[in-house]
């Protein structure tokens, strides 16, 4: 007595026909709506409190936002960031390769460098370079026992800007070295073997095969470091470098609008980090080529998708690809 129990009927499922697409009523999420309202309310209250603070003069913010001194400060901040990151990335890559070198002395020197520059505060390092002339009035290079000798006064050689650049850059190199090393290690060993089997030298394998693939792992934290550097560059304040924060400090010490000028500086820092975030996104997209069949949608494409379907697409596959091992 086996009688087939017929379940709910499938509409439009005559023989050989595709049943109609499911249109179900979605589950309601009242708690999501409630928590959204609460969070928005609290946020709005905080913003309102600050914006309407009785002694906050938004006029001052407006006046100085595009002032000449501030604009010059922004330029110096950008110069500092770019130069320090350049030193950091180049020296960091060298240190990472040295760290992985089969030569124990070379590897050990790299370890020592990272130990020292990561173990002391960057503020102290800037301070050190800025005041180097106190203990070392002259710096020179030469070959002992010959007349080849170049000397210069430390003060002429290391001006405040250079002191800050060195302090920030050398410190950054220690962090970048670890980031680059992690990237290099993340590349499958079979890649190195395949390249070696073709007759490529150690350096060629590193430059042509390993580093380009390591980039996928290196880029996201490097973007972080750049954004961090943009803000950390305000420490150049102690070396009296006229960057954004120093400028806003100088202005506020004359007109006592301390908070207003801090807001001006913050607005610019936020604007610059926002631009960097977008840049980082496209850089990651570029280095993800070859690791996915299709490139992930750009934020604009995702935005359009949310508008038209009401659902956010799954998180960018770049992020997933970075953390997941590649499936062959």
């Amino acid at each position, binding site marked *: 007595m086996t009688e087939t129990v017929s379940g709910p009927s499938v509409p439009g499922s005559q023989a050989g026909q595709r049943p109609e697409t499911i249109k179900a009523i979605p589950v309601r999420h009242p708690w999501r709506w409630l928590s959204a309202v609460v969070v928005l309310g609290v946020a709005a209250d905080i913003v309102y409190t600050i914006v309407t603070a009785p002694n906050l003069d938004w006029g001052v913010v407006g006046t100085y936002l595009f002032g000449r001194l501030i604009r010059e400060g922004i330029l110096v901040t950008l110069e500092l960031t770019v130069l320090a990151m350049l030193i950091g990335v180049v020296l960091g890559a060298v240190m990472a390769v040295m760290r992985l070198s089969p030569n124990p002395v070379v590897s050990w020197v790299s370890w020592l460098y990272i130990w020292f520059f990561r173990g002391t505060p960057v503020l102290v390092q800037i301070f050190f370079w800025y005041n180097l002339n106190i203990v070392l009035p002259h710096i020179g290079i030469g070959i002992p026992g010959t007349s080849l000798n170049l000397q210069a006064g430390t003060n002429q050689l290391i001006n405040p800007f250079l002191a800050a650049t060195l302090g920030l850059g050398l410190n950054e190199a220690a962090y970048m070295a670890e980031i680059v090393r992690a990237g290099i290690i993340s590349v499958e060993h079979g890649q190195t*073997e395949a*390249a070696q*089997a073709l*007759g490529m*030298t150690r350096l060629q394998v590193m430059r042509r095969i390993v580093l380009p693939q390591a980039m996928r792992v290196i880029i996201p934290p490097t973007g972080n470091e750049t954004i961090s550097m943009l803000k950390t560059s305000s420490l150049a304040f102690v070396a009296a470098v006229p960057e954004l924060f120093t400028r806003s400090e100088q202005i506020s010490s004359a007109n006592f609008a301390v908070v207003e000028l801090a807001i001006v500086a913050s607005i610019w820092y936020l604007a610059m980090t926002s631009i960097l975030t977008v840049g980082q996104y496209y850089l990651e997209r570029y280095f993800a*080529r*070859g690791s*996915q069949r299709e490139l992930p949608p750009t934020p604009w494409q995702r935005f359009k998708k949310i508008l038209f379907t009401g659902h956010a697409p799954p998180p960018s596959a770049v992020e997933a690809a970075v953390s997941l091992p590649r499936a062959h």
Partner: protein
Amino acid sequence: MSVVPMVKAEAVHKSFGRLEVLRGIDLEVAPKEVMCMIGPSGSGKSTFLRCINHLEKIDAGRLSVDGELVGYRQRGNKLYELPDSEVCRKRSEIGMVFQRFNLFPHMTALGNIMEAPLMVKREKGATAEARARKLLDRVGLSDKVDCYPNQLSGGQQQRVAIARALAMEPKLMLFDEPTSALDPELVGEVLDVMRGLAKDGMTMVVVTHEMGFAREVGDSLVFMDSGVIVETGTPRDVLANPKHERTKAFLSKVL
């Protein structure tokens, strides 16, 4: 007739730490010969293959390719390690195909094939590209020139990998289980390419589990177990009438 063997191994030993992986390998591969190596995993076949192009250093014995020692130079009765540049030059004359393809994922099929001729042989771009296109055509992938490896099936990837090795115009090709990572239906296309190579007179050492291929294409067959060669002969003989108990036991499981 004293032809210089393409590969000559005498009492080759190799250990990883305390584990002795190769315990005295003696064999010769003549030019244009196709030698297949079979045996259970862990028997040392792949390790031996990797010793031939010095991806692994041997600990004892002598291993030479085309009459020259691998990794060393002998003067009097002393061995001198070869400098990196020499090791690279010798490797560039030996092609190798890996179980997991190991294509460079950030380069297109064409880029993968052109890389070594450009970097190692310092060839001109146009020359390298022309040869790369010809090789892709030879492995039947002329329509995949601009594809990245992850846009290709396993069989297609392995064929690109073979083309990549051939681009260096090697005198010897090493295959390390080239079809073991492939879906069964993709094995044939890779074996076809290898069959073509053998017909064109390429000297090949093939570590494989494809007994059919070994029987049909191989000139000689070596059965290895726990670091030694147990039995060797023509594929037909070894596969049909294995003399050794160990060989019989292995073949009864895989055939």
